[in-house]
């Protein structure tokens, strides 16, 4: 048995710098691993919240039709007409609105709700019923009730009924405003034992709710889709963040082994791989954050000249794609869209970048941009002269981190971002075969009516808009 080192054995001397690099790499690996775990946990939490919202929504939607359609009378006292326990029960628990299920629920329903203090000043408000109050609901906060109700003709929603509510008298009923039926509920907050003194008012558009059978499945489908997207996001993120971590850990292990054995010729190559994995991780994280930011707030809509926007993108990114390769059809040049400029620019940038990357290749890349109006939507098409996308992959390319080209240096987020931007505007995105065999990526945006001078030419407006 050999229990001491042979004097002839080569002694390996490793410099302090290399050990320092090794320690830094190990620390980096641990930090990135912890980041991935925290991100995944955060996403799981968000999904659970989304599930809870859907559950609350389903419960409420099942109760509301009874309240809307049952009594054929107006403004009955609470003793004779059950106070609505559907939205207002939730409201009571959240008398001052915040980022909670109440806000989400009211956001989905054709309803407005506000709370008043003892001075009849509106302390919080949310919801949407187009033109019910003839003012943005957000502008109501801080106003006196009499100012807000000056535009509402029905006596049910009067200062007097709200004053009565301050003394403990609940009122609910169906009333007509501008020829439409509305369901109202005015509820005191004091008698229910809440620490907030005041009144809660809820108004639901009865005509819109009468179509509940039609709208409810649509809203449920939206929530189902969101839940499904969130689950896919968790799966994809946990998978794709793990990929660079495997590389980091694997090559760190080889660096360690080579240092221990005194072999240094492969270390620069392994360190380069580690740097590549870190760069991949950084890119994935950046793209994911960009994706997450889309849709967090409402799009800032403005009238945009599509032709000019395409020009701007082409001219400001000369190193990425050749402006000369971008061809606009005459309609696209004249057409105006109403969208969030920053988001539309980002979506078009990704479409052009994809067309350049997967097109015929420089200098022969040709990108054609077309836009048209159809069924109330503006459809923007970006077609390249590449090989196109096989039918079986046309949906998959919109998934997060999806790559059809193994040599691609992107994170595989471009088309997922495009679709998210389109959907947060109320439109959609897809890919179809191009007429020349390439890929035709399309985005639709709802064609909103604008009263500005620089709106689209009349000839391009849809028949219903002209009407």
């Amino acid at each position, binding site marked *: 048995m050999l229990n001491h080192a042979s004097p002839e054995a080569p002694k390996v001397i490793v410099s302090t710098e290399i050990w320092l690099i090794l320690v830094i790499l190990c620390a980096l690996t641990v930090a990135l*691993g912890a980041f991935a775990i925290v991100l995944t946990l955060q996403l799981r939490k968000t999904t659970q919240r989304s599930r809870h919202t859907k559950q609350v929504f389903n419960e409420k939607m099942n109760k509301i039709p009874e309240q809307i359609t049952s009594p054929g009378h107006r403004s009955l006292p609470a003793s004779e007409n059950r106070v609505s326990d559907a939205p207002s029960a939730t409201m009571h628990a959240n008398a001052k609105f915040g980022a909670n299920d109440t806000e989400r629920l009211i956001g989905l329903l054709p309803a407005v709700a506000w709370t008043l203090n003892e001075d009849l000043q509106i302390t919080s408000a949310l919801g949407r019923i187009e033109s019910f109050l003839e003012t943005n609901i957000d502008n109501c906060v801080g106003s006196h009730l009499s100012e807000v109700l000056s535009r509402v003709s029905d006596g049910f929603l009067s200062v007097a009924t709200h004053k009565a509510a301050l003394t403990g008298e609940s009122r609910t009923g169906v009333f007509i405003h501008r020829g439409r039926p509305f369901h109202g509920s005015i509820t005191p907050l004091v008698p229910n034992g809440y620490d907030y003194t005041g009144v809660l008012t809820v108004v639901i558009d009865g005509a819109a709710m009468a179509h509940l059978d039609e709208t409810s499945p649509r809203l449920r489908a939206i929530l189902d889709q969101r839940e499904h997207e969130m689950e896919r996001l968790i*799966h994809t993120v*946990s*998978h794709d963040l*793990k*990929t*660079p*971590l*495997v*590389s980091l*850990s*694997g*090559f*760190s*292990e*080889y660096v360690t082994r080579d240092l221990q054995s005194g072999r240094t010729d492969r270390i620069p190559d392994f360190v380069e*791989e580690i740097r*590549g*994995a870190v760069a991949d991780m950084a890119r994935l994280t950046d793209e994911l954050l960009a994706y997450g930011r889309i849709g967090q707030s409402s799009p800032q809509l403005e009238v945009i000249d599509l032709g000019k926007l395409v020009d701007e993108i082409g001219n400001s990114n000369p190193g990425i794609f050749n402006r000369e390769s971008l061809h606009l059809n005459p309609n696209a040049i004249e057409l105006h869209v109403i969208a969030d400029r920053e988001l539309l620019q980002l979506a078009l940038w990704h479409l052009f970048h994809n067309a350049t990357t997967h097109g015929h290749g420089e200098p022969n890349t040709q990108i054609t941009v077309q836009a048209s109006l159809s069924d109330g939507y503006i459809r923007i098409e970006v077609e390249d002269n590449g090989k196109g996308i096989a039918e*079986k*992959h046309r949906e998959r390319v919109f998934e997060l981190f999806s*790559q*059809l*080209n*193994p*040599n691609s240096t992107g994170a595989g987020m471009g088309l997922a971002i495009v679709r998210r931007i389109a959907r947060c505007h109320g439109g959609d995105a897809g890919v179809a075969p191009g007429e020349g065999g390439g890929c035709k990526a399309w985005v639709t945006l709802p064609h909103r009516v604008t009263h500005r001078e620089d709106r689209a030419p009349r000839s391009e407006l849809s028949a219903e808009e002209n009407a």
Partner: protein
Amino acid sequence: MSNQQERHILLVEDNAAHAKLASLALTQGDLPCCVHNVTTASEAIAYLHENAAASPPTAPDLVILDLNLPDDATEVLHLLKHDLKLITIPVVVLTTSQSRGDFEKSCRLFANSHLIKPLDGARFRELMATLKHYWLSIHDQTI
């Protein structure tokens, strides 16, 4: 067949770093083997058809398949487990996915094994060494 004859592994992996890590681990040890890396399912299918049509037919001794390829990895599995000329080639699915659905997919398509890439570098290397040892040394393909 002598154990020292060079064995041939087809590695279907689109991530260049993972392919390099796997190749480094697989080419170490006493049992000599060469690793051929392709990055898409269609390349893998073309490679398998080409080798099966060669005279004499040559085929890899082992296929290591990543499930998350730019195109559909299950097409490779389907071909390998339904073509009688290729059916004896063991296929090991190697993935970062911990999805139960992916595991069931591998089972449904008769993969010989389904392995999850370990995050720990040492365990990754050991896993490669173990699967090479089992499928190229213990598992008998000479019958």
